[in-house]
């Protein structure tokens, strides 16, 4: 299916369900998203699939920083990804999808980006 769908914001959880510097997995329109709350309170959402192992586990990685970039390290083989761009800092040819995320009151909402 290549048709461009009109994506909508989906509420996935309450903000206080998110532990600072850890991620959770969310199911949005059938896609697996890794949602993170960083130390400064910001939210980031990327694809949950680790391209190096094929496993859907990026939400379970360690959150930190590389220079100014907020990062997550894959729990499988430890490649590090920039949470803002999805770019892999260990292998610049690789990126993971980045999704839109926002906080509305207590609710955390995600809108998928890209074709589905």
């Amino acid at each position: 299916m290549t048709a461009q769908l009109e994506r909508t914001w989906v509420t996935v959880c309450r903000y206080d369900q998110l532990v600072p510097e850890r991620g959770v997995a969310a199911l949005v329109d059938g896609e697996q998203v890794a949602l993170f709350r960083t130390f400064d309170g910001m939210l980031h959402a990327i694809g949950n699939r680790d391209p190096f192992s094929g496993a859907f586990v990026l939400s379970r990685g360690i959150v930190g920083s590389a220079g100014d970039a907020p990062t997550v390290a894959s729990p499988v083989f430890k490649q590090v990804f920039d949470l803002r761009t999805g770019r892999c800092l260990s292998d610049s040819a690789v990126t993971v999808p980045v999704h839109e995320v926002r906080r509305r009151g207590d609710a955390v909402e995600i809108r998928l980006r890209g074709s589905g």
Partner: protein
Amino acid sequence: MATPRHLVVIGNGPVGQRLVDALRQRDTAGEWRITVLGEEPRQAYDRVALSSYFDGVSAAELDLVEDGCYDDQTRVLCLDEAVVELRRDARIVTTSRGRSIGYDALVLATGSSPFVPPVPGRELPGCFVYRTLDDLDAIRSAAETAAALRGGRPAGMVLGGGLLGLEAARALRLLGMSPHVVELAPRLMPIQVDEGGGALLRQMIEALDVTVHVGTSVERIVRDTSRWNEPRLLATLTNGVELDLDLVVFSAGIRPRDELARRADLPVGPRGGVVVDAGCRTEDDAIYAIGECACIDGVAYGLVAPGFAMAEVVADRLLGGAATFPGADTSTKLKLLGVDVASFGDAHAATEGALEVTVNNPVERTYAKLVVSDDAQTLLGGVLVGDASKYALLRPLVGGPLPGDPLALISPAGAVELGAGSMPDSAQVCSCNAVTKGTICSAIVEHGLTDVAGVKACTRAGTSCGSCVPMLKTLLTEAGVEQSTALCEHFAHSRAELFEIVQVTGITTFTELIERHGTGRGCDICKPAVASILASQSKVGHVLDGESAALQDTNDHFLANLQKNGTYSVVPRIPGGEITPEKLLVIAEVARDFDLYTKITGGQRIDLFGARVEQLPAIWARLVDAGFESGHAYGKALRTVKSCVGSTWCRYGVQDSVRLAIELELRYRGLRAPHKIKAAVSGCARECAEAQSKDVGVIATENGWNLYVGGNGGARPRHADLLLIDVDTDTLVRTIDRFLMFYVRTADRLQRTAAWVESLEGGLSHLRSVIVDDSLGICEDLDAMMAKHVESYSDEWADVLSDPQRLARFVSFVNAPDTPDPSIQFVPERGQKKPVLLEVTTR
């Protein structure tokens, strides 16, 4: 290019190999092709370190031949092939395999053979020499046979109390014997050590359960069948003492292997050895002799350093040089089960007018003597017993001006600090390989060397006996080389430094630590390291509480082992590998009900694979109800304590290894460390639990336990070092407590105990002095830290089940907690399930 000439080297010992290495390095034009003929089935190995073979060092680690040294084209090594005839007229050697090989140049590097004095009975079975790895294997097998036939500890005697004899005694000690050493001279190591040093040496060696008989020799050895079921040996000493023995090792000196040269009519020295000139050439221009088979200036040296020097001379000569033998440095440094002995230069004050300055400290058990010239301006030599730490600094000063008052140089207190700066560039730092301070310092600068490994590779310094390694470090430091110990981009500190910071400042959170001592928000390197540091100081509660959760690797965070498809495996703790049938049934039921793939692990547990994250709590609940806890098969923590069945059931067991293993596993479970920790307990010397491949290994003896530390399996196997002999359970556990806590406190991130023990300056004896003799005064601290760990241990899995907030983490999706991850699929294989291969999209 001209056809290369043919060099034949007879003998592949350390010296013969050194010649090949030297030539390989220098013969860049390919002037020579080389054939090496070795009588032994093994290629060159380090004989200097021979007794370490019983210390857990493998034959492979003693190997001296670099990969790629022999290419079967220009450099050929033929093993198990001796030369039986040398025909100088035709320039041909004939081998034991019947081959005739022509040569343009021939090097005799045939070494020496052990001298066996003509004692009646020396041919009896049970009598051995101490020279090759085969000899060592034969000794070990005889000791094991004796132990098996008779039960108990075998008894051994070493004939000869010199350097080699004490090495042999050390080997017997490592085989679990209490050996006798018989020396004709009135003291041990008569060649190297003077009377005062010999007396202290004897005291210290006797304290190690070695019985010393000096000033006597063996009159006869007979086979005694009258008093034992199995025949033993009865040795009678000339002083009337009789000894019942299982084996005898002759180690009373060596004789040059010069028989080939004799038969070819080459001149030999009065006490043997092929006579060579300063260029190591024999009377025959085409034949050289090097090492222990050569007689140079009328002396046949039985040490490796002069042999190496001769090899270098011949390499130079073969390439048209004019090098000459620089003279021998007969300095020696030996460590016998922790007793340091060193002798250098004119140790016996044979120089005319020489003065001796002696410090004999019976309290500290050290003896030091310096020999100086009559005007007390020049250092001539010395003897150190008990503490040879100054050897590396003093030996290079021999022949040079004294840097201070001789007494102050060897006084324990108020000593003159000897810096590397006081050494002239010409001073030899590595006497085994004749490398000077100047050579090392210029190599550091020219090649930009940054560590000891680099210095070793570049200069060969420190590659033989290793006693100069501390000096290499000093020279690196003085050259301004600083090795970065920074953990990662967020902390400029090493793990050990962070440990100290946390301990001293009382910091209890990662945020506080990184805000005060680091930058950024951490990463997958520093966060788990800090989590481990905080946990081992018992500064945090449950792994999932507060900020702690954000520091954990996925395995620690989900308290199970992540597998390739995103599922986890659960490994219930089975302390010591002991399990009741009822508990086995529970594991089977859990595996069946949750459809988990099961496999027996190497650590005597059962691994249950394929659990989805949301299934974990339900699995743990079933296990907890049945009296299990899930176990750490993950994490930088204690894994298991493996055991054999021990004296309860086994015919050979001498202690209850299962009981001790359970006790140790329950004591150390949950201990967070720089890396994983494995342990094992064997109930007898047969070592069925493979304790010597563990970080902590315990082997039962008739009198208690032997403790081994720093072993490793895996990619870089290492046999553990023997730390304690025949101790009771309390002493054993206390020492393990301290070993583990000292490791936890000072090791680098992801440094196993094997690498840590190797990296300790001063090695095993330093470790022993810290955790047995409390030389740093930290044992009370270490004990207290372990007591706190034991007291605060709690079942981490049960603690998840009892807390709704912690439980809330174990869901597949935050917005669909009960929907399984659709990507996780299985297919059947051999009656169980296996994960469907996932697509990888990065290549």
